[in-house]
Each structure stands twice: as C-alpha cells, then as structure tokens.
C-alpha cells in the first residue's frame, strides 16, 4: 500500500495538473465542440438570392406581406413566386438553374416550398409584427438583402428550433430597454 501511494501520479501536484487538464478540456468541449454537435446544418431547398431581388427594387414587404393591421401574413406561397417565375428559363447560369428547379419541383407539382425559417418562435410565444413595425426588419432578422446565398440554417438537434430563434432573454432585454412591460402575458397568451 505504501508503495502504491508513492507511485501515484505526482501526488497532489499531479492531481491538480489533471484537474487543470480536465477544466481546460471541458472548456474546449463546451465552447468549441458542443455547439458543433448541438446543431445540424441545413440548406434552403431553393438557393434564393435576396440580393438579386433587392437590386430589382423589390421591398421586403412585397413578398413578406404585412396585413392591414400590421400582422405578418407569412412567407410567400409558390403561387406568389410563380407570378414572376412561372416557367422554366433554360438558363444554365447558377441562378437560372435554381429558378428552373423551383418551377419543376414546386410550380408544376403545386407544392409549397418547405422554406427553413430562421426565426420561427415556439408555439407558446405570441409575437406580433404589428407591435414591432416601428423597427427596421434587420434589427431582429439577418440582413439577407445583402446575401446572394441564403445563410446556413442551423437546427438544434434537441429542441428542433433554429439557432437564430430569438431567446426569451433577448426579448426581455429589449422590452426593458424600451420601457415595455415584461409581464408573462405580453408574449405568452
């Protein structure tokens, strides 16, 4: 027993060293590896270029309609997109190919594009765009108008929600800074 004790890895100093290794290792796993494991990366079904559309002078609200009361009417339907992109172009450019893919897979089949929405809130959250219409869209949403390729969509493997879904603390912080109530029922109806 005496021999065993003296052979242990450096005694107390060795133990501290191992603890330090464990501590640093945990930090590396937690801050570097864990996020990569937690999220799966997905791409949009159609490589939609917001830049091209923005350069044509199309405003956000032309496709992402707000109702008369300021309520967001959701994403455009296949039928809405088909008003401009109803037929295959035969264009072999990258953008032309995406248009043709959209027409072939969705317009001709009558299916809706399963767009990946970066900021859908959980169902227990009531978020009114009408109440937030004084803000620029890019205050909360990624500024996609400047992106030719849609950003990658990261889906949380546990919750199933997007990495970009706004967290409660973010809502609360903004409400507090604006002097708006943070009572539960404001967002949870």
């Amino acid at each position, binding site marked *: 027993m005496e021999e065993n004790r003296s052979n242990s890895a450096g005694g107390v100093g060795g133990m501290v060293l*191992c603890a330090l290794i464990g501590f640093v290792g945990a930090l590396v796993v*937690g801050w570097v590896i864990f996020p990569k494991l937690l999220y799966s990366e997905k791409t949009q079904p159609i490589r939609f270029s917001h830049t091209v559309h923005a350069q044509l002078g199309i405003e956000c609200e032309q496709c992402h309609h707000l109702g008369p009361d300021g309520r967001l009417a959701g994403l455009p339907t296949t039928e809405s997109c088909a008003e401009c992109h109803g037929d295959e172009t035969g264009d072999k450019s990258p953008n032309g190919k995406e248009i043709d893919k959209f027409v072939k897979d969705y317009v001709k089949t009558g299916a809706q594009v399963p767009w990946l929405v970066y900021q859908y809130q959980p169902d227990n959250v009531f978020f009114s765009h009408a109440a937030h219409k004084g803000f620029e869209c890019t205050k909360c949403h990624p500024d996609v108008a400047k992106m030719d390729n849609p950003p990658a969509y990261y889906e949380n493997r546990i919750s199933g929600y997007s990495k970009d879904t706004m967290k409660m603390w973010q809502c609360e912080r903004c409400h507090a800074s604006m002097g708006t109530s943070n009572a539960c029922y404001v967002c949870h109806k």
Partner: protein
Amino acid sequence: MGVDRRAFLGLVAGGAVGTMFTPIPWKLLDDVSIWTQNWPWIPKVPKGQIDYVTTTSKLCPAGEGLKIMRVAGNPITASGNPAHPLSSGGVSALARSEVYMLYSPARVKSPMKKSGKAFVPITWEQALIEMADKLGAAKGSVACISGDQSGTVNEVLSAFVGKLGTAGYFMMPSEATTAAKGMQVMGGKGQAGYDFENADTVLVLGADIFETWGTSTRNRKAFSAKRPVGVKPASNYIYVGPTRNNTAAVCDQWIPASAADLGVVALGIAWHLIKAGATSAAPGFDTLRAVVNGGFGPDDVKRATGIEPAVLAGVAKALASSKAAMVVTGSPFGQGLGAGAFMAGMALNILLGRINKPGGVYALPELATVVPGAMTREAMLKADLPGFLKAVADGKKPAPKALLVYDANPAYGLPEAATMAKALEKIPYKVSFSSFMDETAAMCDLVLPNSLTLERYDDVVTPYGSGFCIYSLVTPYQKPVHDTRPTGDVILALARKLSIELKFDNFLQVLKEKVASLAKTSGGFVAKDVMPWQVAAGKPAPALAGGDLWKALSAGYAWTMVGSVTQTGLGFAPEVLAKAVKPGKTSGKTVTLAPYAQLRTGTPTTGIPCQDLTMVPDTELLGETTMVRMGSATAKALGVKPGAMVKLTGAGTHCKAQVHIFESVMTGVVSAPLGFGHTAFDIFSKGKGANYLALLPVTEEPGTGMSMWAAAEVKIA
C-alpha cells in the same frame, strides 16, 4: 506517468468544474425545456401564408357572416365579418366553432347503414340504390323533418318529398314557427322582422335576444351601437321573463314573470295603453278593449303574475312616450311558447302603431322559390311537429312509411322526449342527413353525412328576427374532411334515380338560380356602404351594383332588401287571444320549470362544441351533474339545501340535478340549462348532465290549437 485513481478524480473534478463555465448544462436545460413543446400530443400551429376568406355560419341560427382565417389554405379559426349586416364583426360561440367542428370525433365519416344495433359503412352508390328502393316503395307516405330554418335546401327537400307523396314537411319548432302561427291567426302576412337598430325603447317579453333568439349576434351589435361606453344610452331595454338571463343582465330593467304569463303581462300593458288613450283601426280593437278590461286590469295581472300595477304602468308609459318603441316576444329558450304570447306582443305593437315603421316590426316578404314544386317557407312553418309526433305516438295518426331527417335531431331536441322517440320508432324506414352521430341518427336505418359549412355551398335566407330581408352565401373552402356530401346534391341525385324531375342537377345550380332571381328583385341591394337599417330610417337604397351579385356574395357581402308586405287584414284576433292568454297561478309543492339555452352548449344538431365545453361553469355542470338554479326563497319553500341532489319530475319522467342557489331566478321558478344530457355525439357532449326538455309536457294551446311547452310545473323531491 500512468493515470491512477487520484489523477482520474482530478480530471473528472476539473472537467466538472470546467463544464460549469461552458454553455453545456445551461443550454441543455433550456433546449430540453423547449423540446417538451414537441411532444406529439401537443397541437402545432401550422405555418404558411395567412389569408382571410368569408362565408356565413350555418351552425349558428343567427346566420352571421364569418371571416375565416386560413394558414397555407387551411381554415384555422372563424371571426365575425365586419361587412356583414348580421355580424358587424360579432360572432357567437357557436359560429366560432365552425372550423373546430370539422374535426369533431362525433362526425359521421361515411354513409352508414344500420346492421343490428351497430352501423356499418357503405358507399354513396349503395346508399342511393337502397334509398331509391325504399323511398320508391314508401311513395305517398314520406315525411321530412328539417332543422335548417333558413336554407334554400328546404326547397329541394320539400319538392322532392312533395313529388314522392308527402306525409308532411316539418320544421323543427322555433320562434319562427310560433310567429308564423301568430301572424296567420291575426290575419297578417309576411315574416315578423324586428328593427333593433332604429328602436329607442324595446320591451322584450321572454325572448333571450342576446343569446338564442333570432339574429342574436346582430341584436347585440345593435344594442351596443346605441349604448357606447361613458355616454348616455340612446335606447331603453326592458326585459320580462323568469330569470335574469344574458339578455336581462344588460337590460335597463328586469321584470320577473313566468313564461306562462308573458301574454298576461302584454295584455296588462295593453290595458294601461288603452286607458291612456291608445286606439287602433285594426280589426278587433273594440273586442280587444273589452277583453283587456274584462280580465287584464292591474289587479288581475298582479294576482296572476305578482307584478305591481305601478311597474306595468311605468312600462306602458315608457312605450307610449317613445318615438320608436318595439315589443319583441319569444320563449326564453327559443321554442315552445304558444302563439298567444306572440299575438299579445304583436297587439302591443299594433296599438303603438309600430308595424312596418322604422324601429318597429316589419312584415317581411318571402323571397321567390326557384325549385319547381317547392313549398314556401310560410307553408313549411305551418306544420306542427310535436303535435304530429304525439298523435303518431298515441296512435291517433298513422306513422309515415319513411322519414327523412335533415340537419335536425328530434329525438333529443323536442319536449316529451320519450313520446317523440316512441313516435320515431313507429316509422319503419328512417334516413338522417346529419353531419354528426346524434340521437336521431342513431335511431335511423341510414345515416348520410352532410358536409359541414366550410365544405359545401349553401345559403342563409332571412333568418327569423332579422329586420330586413337578407341573403348570404355559404362558400366551401376545403374538400370534405371525411367522405361526406352536401345533402342538396344527394337529394338531386336521388331524384334522378327515381325519375323525379327537379330541374337541377346539383345544388350549386339551385343557388345560382336563386341569386339570379334576387338580382332581378326590385329594391334589393348589396349592403356595403349603406346598411339596410339606414335605408329603413330613410336613406336611399343604392342600386344593385354591376350585376355580378354572385361575386359580391362570394366576397362576403349580403344582399338585402328593406321591404314590407302590405297588411290588409292584420288585426288583434281578440277572440283567440281571450282563449290563449288566461291568467293562472302556480301553487303548492311544484315549481315552474324555466329552461334556458346558451349557444356555448351548442344546439341539438351540433352537440356541445369541444372548445366551448371549457366555458361551461361549475355552477352549470359539475362533473357529470347539471345544476338547476333557484332563489333561496324557492329553495326554502321546497325544503332543499344548496348543493343538494334533487329529482325533478314532469311529463311522466324524471331527471336528476344539483341545486344551485341563484337569486336571479324569480321565486317559484327553477331554471335549468339545456344542451346537456346527450346520449350520442362524442366525449364532449355524451353523458354530461340531463336533458330537461324531456320534463316538459306538450299541451294544446286553447284558441290556436298549437302545441306549447314553454312553461310546465315540475315536482322537486
């Protein structure tokens, strides 16, 4: 250096401490909590483009226009259509359930044929073949019961059974049947329509105008429009009835009176009006004056009803001094009030000179029929269903050989339920066109499910209570959820099989022709910028715009017409009134049963909408027991304590109930909720409480001969 136990512990401890400085535990906790929202039994909010479409409610008798919110083309919820005159943005608990009921577990999912005590699914073709065979054999003795008071589908059904040789076409009893009988006896023409929007004093005799009577959603809107918050009300509402119900609760005055005494109260007011100098050129005035003076003086009325003479004098004064007074009469639960009370109420309107006047009672014309051989609504409303079924049950009339039941549930929704069920059992072949497996469908040989409102074309034609003629379209917005069909189409297909000529191949053609006939009707217009009550008040009616009426109706607007049938013989019918309205007095160990109905507990045709069950308070339904309400004085007289279980006996049967002390029920009356006690439907309706309609015996009203059951005495033990 090997890793021994101490090194390992150090590594673990360091790792554990380090982990606390990373997002791992906190993020995992957060994500797991969010993940609990993904449990499969939690309903999901659908994603997709949100839009709104319009239609009209068929579940709610108020016929309000609806705005349906859709997400990615799926109907999600219903709200009131602000552009519709019977809604003005309002919606009832029943109309709101139009979307949810699509997925009710009680829906009949395909045609069903009775096999022994159970039902087996069959195809539509098999069903049509069987029906053609059975109805062909029953020719000359086919009856029909319809629960749709306002649809053109009644034209198709009545023409069909008429050509088969009808044994009777019956509407489920309602205020419309009572009013039609009253108008007929008084020598009047047209459907009574009430102009709430322009009235400044409204005396409500019994009718629960903000809940179950007539165009209740529109009535509420008209009421609130004249009474903005913080401003002196521009109208005065007085309610007379046995309970302080949803109507009485917001009226300016509640005068307690039993439903059996509503006619007495009306004639008591007439006594005061006549004494103050009211007169009329209408036939029978002199006799009416003699009748009123002979038995409806202040003391007579006090003896019969307990109402102080000064109270009635005050009501008479309020009516006489108003510019636009109106009297509305109805049963507190929407059925069973004899025509006598209606006639007495109309007598007041005539005395006040309020017929066909803004803010008064309009005699509305009936819109032209389009199906050859169809009955008029006036003719349909004449038939007395409870009287007929009672006679069949008692063997006084032969049972028809076949019965078609459309959108109705007579086995549950009629008084003396046991008698009605006995009569129905005597009919050898029965078919129910019901969307739900209700009590009547369960008794039938064949159940042919009708598509629901959002799945079919249909219409609403001037529901009872409306102060103007109105036509609204019902438009389908989705394919039927189950293997159901619109009954109008089924009947037209059946007619073809039986070589009966009804002119139309499908029901959509019928509706198009109906709309085309409206477009030619002089005086009609689309209510858009000008509303019909404004026209009644003197604003010029706009011309019918553009000609494409169908398009306007599809967009949620209603066709309306302000008009009245010229009355040539409308009088007081005092001889009949004298027989039908007689002062009486309740006494002894019995109390008067005063049922009340609320739209949140559905109708006999729909059962209780699932989402509305959560709105039923514990003071109405506790567990599986329904509560009856009575004042403490009544409870003391009966010797029952709050919360006690009691047995109510009447009409040869009995129901259980728990006692709830509620001082808004007049002394000597026990108030009971309707809509409960279903033995069919789904878990939301079945086995909850008792059906107190069963306790009400059907009696024949003296003078009019009409069946009545609005108030009956019950024993409580």
